């Protein structure tokens, strides 16, 4: 409820700034309305295993970590409202609406006029760590996110806080950033340190190779405190979770003209270190230390206008924390979760896309064959995508 309330305040603030300016300019009252965009998203999914029993062996899962709903289902619709607030501020708001829940995904303001390569953002936002973390679900190249994100970052780490970014005045794209966050979302939990439970830092580099290729590489670090963080059916963790993410993305198009053909490769490695006390559901508090990790690599190729195909491989390594946790959610049972995915999608225009995807998902020892047929449609203003 609090989330919805915050959103309303933000909406009201944006609407107000628009109408005040419009009145001053003597124009129609809606001339300064913010950009409004809506993403409609729906899926038909088929699983060979019951998705209600989904888990990743050896990993406690936070956030929205299920693989989806069998049959026809409405995915998350995203309503986004963005505008320059005044010469110094830009505001963005994204509401994610599932069939049963509504969540404020983004509600932040950020500076536009600090100069010197500096940008400060405050509010709720997806952390700048990693590559995939900042991308909204509609911009993903597959229906679902990487397994390593699902297992180690609760699908996508978003939280309340402040972010500082600085772009260096050099030709090689060099950006450093730091965030100070509430610590309310997995892998953090319980808003430790009076609501300052997590911080992160990241470095990005990037550039072009000739006129056909461009790349970005990054290294990120997230330090998250968990206080009585509940996952699954009642597993509780108190301690720290530190995550390192190394990411690289490479894009190619003949002469840099992506219209006919283009290729995109991305890979990320996530390494986590968890230390503290773990209380498995129905069990007792036990000291816990483990270093789970995971990686994925994916390639997407547009072979002609409108049509793209993609391949992805996911792999996880649960670090068994010892015999004290046998038969709990942390017990890896000697299994290395992995998943292979293949997808093909068709875009009638840049505003509509249909996708067919198949996963052979071995998150659990017994493989699950997953089929997804998805549509993603964009109505109204559609903000430019980040690289």
């Amino acid at each position, binding site marked *: 409820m609090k989330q919805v309330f915050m959103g309303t305040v933000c909406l009201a603030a944006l609407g107000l700034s628009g109408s005040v300016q419009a009145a001053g300019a003597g124009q129609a009252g809606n001339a300064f309305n913010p950009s409004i965009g809506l993403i409609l998203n729906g899926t038909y999914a088929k699983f060979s295993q019951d998705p209600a029993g989904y888990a990743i062996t050896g990993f406690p899962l936070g956030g929205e970590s299920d693989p989806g709903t069998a049959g026809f289902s409405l995915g998350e619709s995203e309503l986004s409202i963005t505008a*320059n607030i005044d*010469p110094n501020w*830009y505001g963005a708001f994204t509401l994610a609406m599932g069939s049963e829940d509504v969540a404020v995904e983004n509600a932040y303001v*950020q500076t*536009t*006029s*600090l*100069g*010197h*390569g*500096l*940008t400060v953002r405050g509010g709720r936002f997806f952390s700048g760590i990693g590559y995939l973390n900042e991308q909204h679900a509609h911009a993903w190249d597959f229906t679902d996110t990487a397994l390593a994100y699902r297992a180690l970052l609760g699908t996508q780490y978003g939280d309340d806080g402040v972010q500082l*970014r*600085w*772009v*260096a*005045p*050099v*030709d*090689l*794209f*060099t*950006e*450093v950033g*730091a965030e100070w966050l509430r610590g309310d979302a997995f892998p953090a939990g319980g808003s430790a340190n009076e609501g300052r439970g997590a911080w992160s*830092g990241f*470095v*990005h*580099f*990037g*550039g*072009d190779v000739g*006129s056909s290729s*461009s790349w*970005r590489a990054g*290294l*990120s*670090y997230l*330090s998250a405190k968990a206080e009585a963080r509940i996952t699954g059916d009642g597993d509780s963790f108190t301690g720290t979770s*530190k995550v*390192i993410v190394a990411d690289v993305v490479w894009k190619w198009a003949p*002469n*840099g*003209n*992506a*219209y006919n053909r283009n290729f995109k490769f991305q890979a990320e490695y996530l390494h986590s*270190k968890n230390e503290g006390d773990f209380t498995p559901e129905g069990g007792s508090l036990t000291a816990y230390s483990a*270093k789970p990790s995971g990686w994925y690599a994916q390639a997407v190729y547009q072979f002609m*206008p*409108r049509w793209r195909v993609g391949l992805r491989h996911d792999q996880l390594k649960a670090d068994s924390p010892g015999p004290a946790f046998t038969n709990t959610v942390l017990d890896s049972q000697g299994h290395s979760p992995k998943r292979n995915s293949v997808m093909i999608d068709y875009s*009638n*225009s*840049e*505003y509509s896309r249909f996708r067919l995807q198949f996963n052979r998902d071995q998150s659990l020892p017994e493989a699950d064959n997953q089929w997804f047929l998805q549509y993603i449609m964009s*109505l109204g203003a559609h*903000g*430019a*995508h*980040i*690289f």
Partner: protein
Amino acid sequence: MKTIGKVIAVLLIAMPLTALVIKPASAGVDVFACEPEWGALAKTLGGDLVSVYTATTAYQDPHQIQARPSLIAKLRRADLLVCTGSQLEIGWLPVLLRQAGNRRVQPGQPGNFAATEYVTMLDKPVSVDRAQGDVHPGGNPHIQTDPRNMALVAKALADRLAQIDPPHAVDYAARYKDFDAQWQTALVRWEQQAAPLRGVKVVVHHKAWSYLFAWLGIESVASLEAKPGVPPSAGHLSEVVAQLRNQPAKMVIRAAYQDGRPDEWLAEHVPIRVVVLPFTVGGSDAAADLFGLYDDTITNLLEGAK
């Protein structure tokens, strides 16, 4: 793990300091041009007083550019952003502006120059609906296909350079005067050369030539894209063929960056010439500068109309 954490912490602190030591290597006004024609114009009007970076080439579709890291790095240091505007760059420029942390080039600042603000826009839709395809509410943004627009933009850009770099205001004014004199002479020549093109019927690939056609009196009878920005489909191409059998056209025109296959297919089914125009500076060997751009455009059109 702790070591990696420390390494990142050190990087976070050390990198800004290192970058501060590296002195930005720029001579005069740093110009970030969104498209090659504006890069060429800025170079012509600024000469040695400006250092121009052009974000796209003639072989790229200016609607569909990735917000690449290299572009953020370049925009970070720019004193002046010169773009077409009218939402041509809406798919990538807003992201660059938000990420570069450069106050000088934000909308409303003197360092933000949109060429379409200085010309009369064509194809301004009365209402906009995406069912019409990728329409631009402010009008057709491809203004550079009419050289008379280039003269108007040149005046505005020279004034803007003078505003940003007042010590050299006299130099920009002089360079503009020089350019304009040559341009007016060239305009007379182009209009004489292009006289036979008046009333010639053509098919376009994308609705990118409204200004050129308005200038030279060329008549566009069909478009290979059923709606702007929607790739040509087999169904729509068959309709165009049927139309052209009744109502022939001389040539089918596309820009250097566009896929030639639909045009070639069309030429196999109806008697029509395929003409590739440079569209912007660098779109052909002959279009090496602004003068060459229109020389080559008219030469190709005359060839196609024979």
